[in-house]
């Protein structure tokens, strides 16, 4: 019996990707340290995040053990559940920060839009695998329409950041599926031409954020204030930062959401360039590892799904970090694995689990 469980454990350990697990563990450690600091040296956030980490890790391990074929077969079911949840959240969801995003599960609030970051990569991969490569224009348009359904639902919440990620993931999938570069260039030109029209569909606060992004000095005490304060926090950190629990910008509450969306500002202020580069290298490493697994995979579905799952995590980190540095407008995207919160952590680790499962399916063949 004991030897049986031991062999079970060794099988599980073998199925884990060492690089990915190292990165995830390092990020989790950073997260706990940062949240300890964010709570002014109290363990409140740390305890709750540990609990979520345990659930999400269990989820990841479970998914790792699931044969990839099973995941592939349930892609459609998964996506339909996602869309139903999105519809539910729009009609019945809890309102937070001017948007209906959450489903209250009692022990934690869940954001279905986060789940889409896992579901959409699988859906696009499934679709592309059924098409001929390089992908034809008509198939691309059909796929685009398919992704638009959950994207529009997410946009309706409204959650602009996640919608952008979903759309980018879908478009990247079409790109990777080998769409002719002529069509890509023409589409890009059309997209640029359509940009001004899409302005009318933005919410007022989203418009404000965009205005403030392009004119940050417009109102240092208005909405652009947060971007400026975040830049001051990061910039004043220097090489080594002010040290744990000592960042004045965070302590004196100049940084809003310093444990969720603006957690990177806290890292920059208290741990300096060393801290920010460490985090940056973690996500760059995650990207390289993910795409490496995709590149090595044999079949199209595995390639596209892994590449897109990796992309969705990478995009979240890029958008979040860029936003805290004033490189992109403020859209509410948390920093994967590090920001306080359950949904993002759960879906990120689910994605990692799927990547590992896919990798294992390749090795077993």
């Amino acid at each position: 019996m004991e030897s049986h469980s031991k062999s079970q454990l060794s099988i599980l350990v073998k199925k884990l990707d060492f690089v990915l697990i190292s990165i995830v563990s390092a990020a989790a450690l950073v997260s706990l340290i940062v949240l300890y600091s964010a709570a002014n040296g109290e363990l409140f956030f740390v305890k709750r995040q540990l609990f979520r980490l345990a659930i999400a890790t269990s989820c990841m391990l479970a998914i790792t053990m699931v044969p990839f074929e099973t995941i592939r077969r349930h892609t459609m079911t998964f996506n339909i559940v996602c869309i139903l949840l999105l519809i539910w959240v729009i009609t019945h969801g809890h309102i937070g920060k001017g948007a209906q995003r959450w489903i209250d599960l009692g022990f934690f609030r869940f954001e279905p839009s986060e789940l889409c970051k896992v579901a959409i990569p699988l859906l696009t991969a499934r679709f592309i695998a059924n098409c001929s490569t390089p992908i034809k224009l008509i198939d691309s348009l059909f796929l685009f329409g398919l992704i638009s359904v959950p994207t529009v639902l997410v946009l309706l919440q409204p959650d602009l950041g996640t919608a952008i990620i979903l759309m980018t993931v879908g478009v990247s999938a079409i790109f990777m599926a080998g769409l002719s570069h002529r069509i890509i260039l023409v589409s890009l030109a059309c997209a640029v031409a359509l940009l001004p029209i899409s302005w009318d569909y933005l919410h007022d606060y989203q418009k404000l954020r965009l205005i403030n992004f392009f004119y940050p000095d417009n109102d240092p005490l208005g909405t652009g204030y947060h971007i400026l304060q975040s830049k001051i926090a990061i910039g004043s950190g220097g090489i080594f930062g002010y040290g744990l629990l000592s960042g004045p910008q965070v302590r004196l509450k100049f940084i809003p959401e310093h444990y969720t969306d603006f957690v990177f500002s806290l890292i920059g202020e208290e741990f300096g360039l060393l801290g920010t580069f460490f985090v940056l290298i973690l996500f760059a490493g995650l990207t390289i590892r993910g795409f490496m697994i995709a590149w090595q995979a044999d079949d199209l579905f595995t390639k596209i799904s892994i590449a897109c799952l990796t992309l969705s995590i990478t995009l979240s980190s890029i958008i979040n970090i860029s936003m805290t540095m004033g490189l992109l407008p403020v859209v509410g995207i948390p920093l994967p694995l590090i920001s306080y919160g359950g949904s993002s952590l759960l879906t990120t680790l689910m994605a990692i689990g799927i990547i590992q499962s896919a990798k294992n399916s390749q090795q077993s063949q």
Partner: protein
Amino acid sequence: MVKPIVQTRILISCALLLMIFIVIGYQLYSLQIIHNLSYQAQALKNRLHDTIIENERGRIFDRNGVTLASYRTEPTLHVPDQDSLKTLARILQKPNIEHTKTPTLIKQLSTEDIQHFYEHSHQMPNIKVREHTIRYYHDDEAFAHVVGYIGDRQEKNQTKISNKYGISGIEQYYDSLLSAHPSIKTYEYSSTGQRQNLVSESDGQRGNNITLTIDARLQKKAYELLKQYTGALVALNPTNGEILTLVSTPSYSNNNLIRGIHDSRNKHTSQLNRAINGQYPPASTIKPFIALHALSHNNISEQYQIHDPGYYVVGNKVFNDWYKKGQGDVNLNRAIALSSDTYFYHIAEVMGIDAIESVLSAFRFGQSPTLDLGHPSPGLVPSERWKLQEKSERWYTGDTVITAIGQGSLLATPLQMAFAAGILGNKGLTKKPHLRLSSEADSVTDSIAISQYGQKEYDIIIQAMIGVVSGNETLRTGRLLNSHLYDLAAKTGTAQKVSVEYASNNEDNKIKDHSMLIGFLPHDQPNLAFAIVIENQPGTANRIAKEWLELYATLYNGKIKD
């Protein structure tokens, strides 16, 4: 089998993402390394704010410790909102305050304003009365030209120095001494503006007090006597250079000025300090100096006598004496006592302009006196060279003779006249005039000595000037000055010149003569030398001088305290 294009596209996608990471990395380097100091400064500016507590500016006292400039608290109104401000503007009938941003402090309120506010305070329940400390000048109009006034600095970013600075008078000259250094407390604030903790604290310093040489009693008396006229009175102690009185009229209220209340009287004329900047023809007051030189250089003797027909002819030009009938035989004593122009026309022609220029320069006419107040004017002593340079004209003997009676181009300030009278009375010795009491000042009491004139000649001139006041000539010009309270030597003068107040509306004043007087007492060992100029009021100087000198004599009993 997967097509190679997919592999390529996967590589491209990954490379693009990594490039984005590199851009972010560079941006982090830029923020945290290149611009680190700038952001650190911004972070400090974010959370650290100075609280500046002004310390009290130094007080100003007269020589006896009477306060001339200090502080007092006045009510101000704290207006929190625009509605209250509107109501207040209506009730106080001050429409100009209506457009200030609330919350605001309404300062510079008169007693009536405060009274109006209290009567209607139920309409403006949000307005609170607060105490506000403001510079206060005692007997403001009497001392305005000496004490001066202060104002607010325009540049606000200098926290190390006081926000107040002296604009004129002693307040300006001794500004660095009087100025307080504000105390600065630097607090850390949260983003919501809550004060967290004291980061640094620097103790400021109170300003230094200053004691002046001015005697407030004499100054106030002089102002009382002069205030209805336009003129000046300067009095100093020739043995030590201490200025006891320096009055200029019309004066202004420096209390009103610092409260932003402007005089209805012409600002230009009231702020002009005639005592040091009013340049007048010194008229006959110049005659003793001319005579001193003539005696010393044997141009005349004490007994030397001329006949005065009431006029004097130079070439083909006739110069009239003020006394048209002529005084008959005139010697030096009579010439001074009766202020004979003819006598001085005569000796001027003998002396020549160079000799006149020499004596007037020796007595410091035509040069800016050093004084710890404002910028005293130099006056003007004309010469051949001056006329050629300024007017491109040759010097005529006629110019010489009218210079000798203090007319023509000759100009002097009351300070110069009092100072010269002091040198004469003290027989060539004096000290530089100053306003800060020398017991606390370091090196303002430089001695001045004029050595080219002998004691005997001084005595003759002083005797002649005693004769102006108490001699046996019935028509002596200073007869009204005679008093048993003092032993005065003096010289009167009447300047035929328009007022320096060019802006005056009163056309008549322009053509009336200025009345002037210089003198010193006691005549044997003077401790007071003075000059009085009253514009456009012939004869007034004597009447004013007598009343004022009697007060001086009573106060100091002929002896001044050291």
